[in-house]
């Protein structure tokens, strides 16, 4: 299904190397009091890949997302998106530029319906304010119709169409995660950050999630995936970075990571 609003050509006609990486982090550090959550992190994310981000609890994965999305400002370093510096920008500005996220502990607008959650997700692609709403300007009507159409497409894409009118807080947990993804896609991001999207899902749901993420990527969205579920991360990621206590421990293809001894020692070994 290609109802993402992103055309697949996007990816094919932009060879990764010619235009430079989509997202570049250079020497990013972030400390909380005495805890060095991120320590001199440098890596690039080429357009159109799925980048797995793994590491033990407290490694700094969520902090990395918070720094990229502007929720926290890094103590030092640069974050460049499409070649432009975004460090220090406000969260909503960064979303507008094309970086969307989901949360490790699902954060839906619980009192609102499933459809409304996605409609709020479309926020940055609209421009009508209070006055347009009050006098019902033609552009407000047009925009409202567009938002409705777009959100029903997205609900269809994640398979939640029949839940559209339910209160989102009443959805089963697995579906809440899907809804959060739909809401994030509604901003038409070019980069999507998923923070442990498989946590709390059963095996079937996790498999479906995997193919959903691949579909999102094939629609031209670059994905950063923080995930503890190794089989999911290893199968769908093109590249993987490993964080350990705030530092970048390793970087490579899933195969390289699996045979990296430092990683095994720091992380995978513990899991087994």
């Amino acid at each position: 299904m290609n109802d993402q609003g992103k055309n697949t050509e996007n990816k094919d006609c932009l060879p990764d190397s010619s235009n430079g990486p989509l997202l570049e982090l250079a020497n990013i550090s972030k400390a909380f009091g005495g805890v060095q959550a991120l320590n001199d992190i440098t890596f690039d994310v080429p357009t159109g890949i799925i980048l797995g981000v793994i590491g033990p609890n407290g490694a700094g994965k969520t902090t990395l997302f918070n720094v990229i999305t502007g929720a926290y400002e890094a103590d030092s370093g640069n974050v460049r998106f499409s070649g432009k510096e975004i460090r220090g920008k406000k969260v909503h500005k960064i979303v507008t530029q094309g970086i969307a996220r989901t949360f490790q502990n699902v954060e839906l607008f619980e009192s609102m319906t499933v459809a409304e959650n996605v409609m709020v997700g479309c926020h940055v692609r609209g421009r009508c304010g209070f006055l347009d709403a009050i006098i019902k300007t033609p552009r407000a009507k047009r925009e409202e119709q567009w938002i409705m159409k777009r959100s029903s497409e997205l609900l269809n894409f994640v398979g939640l169409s029949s839940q559209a009118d339910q209160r989102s807080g009443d959805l089963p947990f697995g579906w809440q995660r899907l809804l959060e993804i739909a809401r994030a896609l509604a901003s038409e991001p070019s980069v999507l950050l998923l923070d442990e999207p498989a946590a709390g899902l059963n095996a079937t749901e996790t498999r479906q999630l995997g193919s959903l993420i691949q579909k999102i990527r094939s629609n031209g969205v670059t994905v950063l995936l923080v995930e503890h579920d190794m089989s999911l991360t290893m199968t769908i990621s093109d590249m993987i970075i490993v964080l350990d206590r705030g530092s970048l421990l390793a970087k490579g293809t899933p195969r390289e990571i699996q045979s990296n001894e430092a990683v095994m020692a720091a992380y995978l070994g513990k899991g087994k």
Partner: protein
Amino acid sequence: MCDMLLSRINPIRFAFFFLVIALVGLLVDNAYYQQVLILIGINTLLAVGLNMLMGYAGQISLGHAAFYGIGAYTTAILTAKYQIYPWIALVIAILLAVAIAVVVGLPTLKLSGYYLGMGTLGFGMIFNIIFREWSSLTGGASGFVGIPSLSIGSLSFESGRNYFYLVWFSVWSVFLICSRIINSRAGRALRSIHDSENASMAVGVDTMTLKLQVFVLSAAFSALAGFLYAHYISFISPGSFDFLMSVRMVTMVVIGGMASIWGALLGASLLTLLPEWLHAFSEFEMVVYGLVLMLVMILMPQGLTRGILDIYERSREKYRK
């Protein structure tokens, strides 16, 4: 989809509301009842404005009586002292309330929870002191007398019936404005702040600007209410715009049910009628509001409207079993 349903139901509701206002205005002849209904209408304006801020955006204000007072005093001073045409005074009163809301809102809305409550409380108190102490302008503690009555051309609003229509069609318009906002892009963004400000920012809502906008909007409605109050009673004093009034406004919103414009109507009615019925408790008004607030929050956190509906649904289910 529910929004399509809403957009179909809404016009019917508003047409019905319009008819009810027209009919009640025709049928009620008794001057006392007219007065009570007018006061309910003015309180409803206050409640529905504050409800946009509290119920929908989730931001508390314990100082909104200040905007009510700014509306009332501005029009009183302009019309009685400077003979300015009242409808122009209305525009100036609202603009002044808006300007003050921007100045006050910018720093205070950065606060959250208790701090926002304390910030707005302080702001309300400062304005009450201004109303009380700037006697040369406001008449001080003894109040401001001689506010002229309203008219448009030859249509005078001196009679109870005409004033009833003026107030209630204002309520009707403000309800329409609010309901349109709530079901729009900006309104959904507003509601999302209430549920999770964090997520709201993460989907790209400029929460600070939006909170400020709705703060300003509710200030404008309060100023409108103040204008209507001043020209109705023709006498105002600082006591009508004090901390107790701010608490009364919050109580109206909470009782009626946050995030419900029709609930604001219920809350305003109850809080206008109760003191009328129970003159005895006027000394303890503050205590009573405190208790009511606590009880509603504990027993029916969604407000009376939702609470009663819930009880009704639960009892129906019991009978079915």
